[in-house]
């Protein structure tokens, strides 16, 4: 089940990561080693077993809690600026990004 260069390139693209050619080679080797480990799961007979998403699901009924539809007051421009304080490229209350042409 060895990974190909294309596999690594595809994973990098899906993950929003940039791997140079050295990175790619290393990633391939490392992922192959990791796959060897996680492939141990294939041998397990899990017929009839439901996947478990919440760890307490086997112990008690876990259902999504619902909140009342009550809005918070809108933030003042100052409060908004506090949230924007960490932004790399803020401008007139907006986050700037290079334009995507569709």
């Amino acid at each position, binding site marked *: 089940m060895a990974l190909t260069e294309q596999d690594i390139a595809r994973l990098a*693209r899906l993950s929003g990561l940039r791997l140079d050619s050295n990175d790619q080679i290393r990633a391939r080797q490392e992922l192959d080693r990791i796959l060897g480990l996680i492939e141990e799961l294939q041998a397990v007979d899990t017929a009839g077993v439901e996947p478990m998403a919440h760890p307490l699901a086997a112990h008690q009924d876990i259902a999504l809690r619902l909140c009342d539809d009550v809005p918070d007051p809108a933030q003042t421009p100052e409060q908004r600026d506090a949230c924007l304080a960490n932004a790399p490229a803020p401008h007139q209350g907006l986050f700037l990004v290079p334009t995507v042409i569709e």
Partner: protein
Amino acid sequence: MDWEIVIGLETHAQLSTRSKIFSRSSTRFGAEPNTQANAVDMALPGSLPAMNRGAVERAIQFGLAIGARVAERSVFARKNYFYPDLPKNYQISQFELPIVVGGKLSFFVGEQEHTVNLTRAHLEEDAGKSLHEHFTGPHGESSSGIDLNRAGTPLLEIVTEPEMRSAAEAVAYARTLHGLVVWLGICDGNMQEGSFRCDANVSVRPRGQAEFGTRCEIKNLNSFRFLERAIQYEARRQIELIEDGGKVVQETRLYDADRDETRSMRTKEDSDDYRYFPDPDLPPLVVSPEWVEQVRAAMPELPAAKRARFEADLGLSAYDAAQLTLHRATADYFEAAAAALPAGQAKQAANWILGELSAALNRDDLDIGASPVSPQGLAALIARVLDGTISTKIARDVFAAMWTGESGGDPDAIIESRGLRQISDTGAIEAMIDEVLAANPAIVEEYRAGKQKAFNSLVGQVMKAAKGKANPQQVNEVLKRKLDS
């Protein structure tokens, strides 16, 4: 080659909750950029989603309204892809287990009734907005500004089976769906503000072929006109492509309204692998049968039920009933007018509403709620026709006068002040008829010779003499009596 067009629609309706689907930020439209985006909406480190009951309730209402199954257990899943208006770079949506399954919607295309099956409807969060004005980034690069006020607004995504076969059908479906969500009060239907957006999946195949052709998805159509044009263009494009020996490539396209054409979106390879998995931050959504019943009990009478009642109890045709139940305001208007009329005369109200009233509203670009003529006023006008005070033809003039508010909009006052009262006095009518008969011996001869047209000519002359105010039925009766005797 006889081609068949195959269309399926996915509609995103913004739900009318006051706060967002997974955060308590307000959903109000038009606020200053990023003032309605809290830590959760901005996906700040450490933030987590919490579910809005109001969004679930509206989904339940929709499911009931279309006769679908409301899932007792549904699951939120992450749809992973990178895009700057998607703060977490995943969208919380529903994938394998949506909240609403199945259902159907009926509507008229012209005089023909259609029913389209719905596959499903599910809850998800809306993305923010990119403003593509000419901003300049920190390195001088051409930039867009991201506003996250809209990020997290609840959406209901409504998916049909690929059962529609024409752009007209798709538009009729979309209009009916639009009417329904507004009727239920779960969506404000404001298409300019983006509250109701359609994606059309379009493919073509030779008529009679069982397999579907390759489809393209046209995204984000926010007017019925664009929806129609985009589908028409796309179908034509695909047919021409195939007839020229080409193959349709499955892709996402946008509709360019200025050029009236669809265009391929910049394709991102492998962007389709969304790696859906159940969101570990959100346990399964449980909707009990008891809750569904509570919602059902609190819902207004649905269009389908009203339509059935209008047909059965008030004697309307299926078409008329369907037209009157497209919008709640129209149905309410009709019911109020019918209630103010004598029993059995509801059809009159239907005719006037679908005819004169509708034309006047369209002409003046008004919603029925802003009609200068109230349901009671209309009923009063119709009553004057029924009791013979005025003819239908004169009634149209009275209606126009009521519309402008003449004489306070009161039909009786208008009839009086304009002297439009129909002449029904038998003596007066007989006298007029005698005059006309005496003045037109040649036409009388023609009638006696068998020419029916002569009769109509004589009626016309009587009406002219009466300045249109003679009761037409009476004129007909008396004239016939006199001529045949």
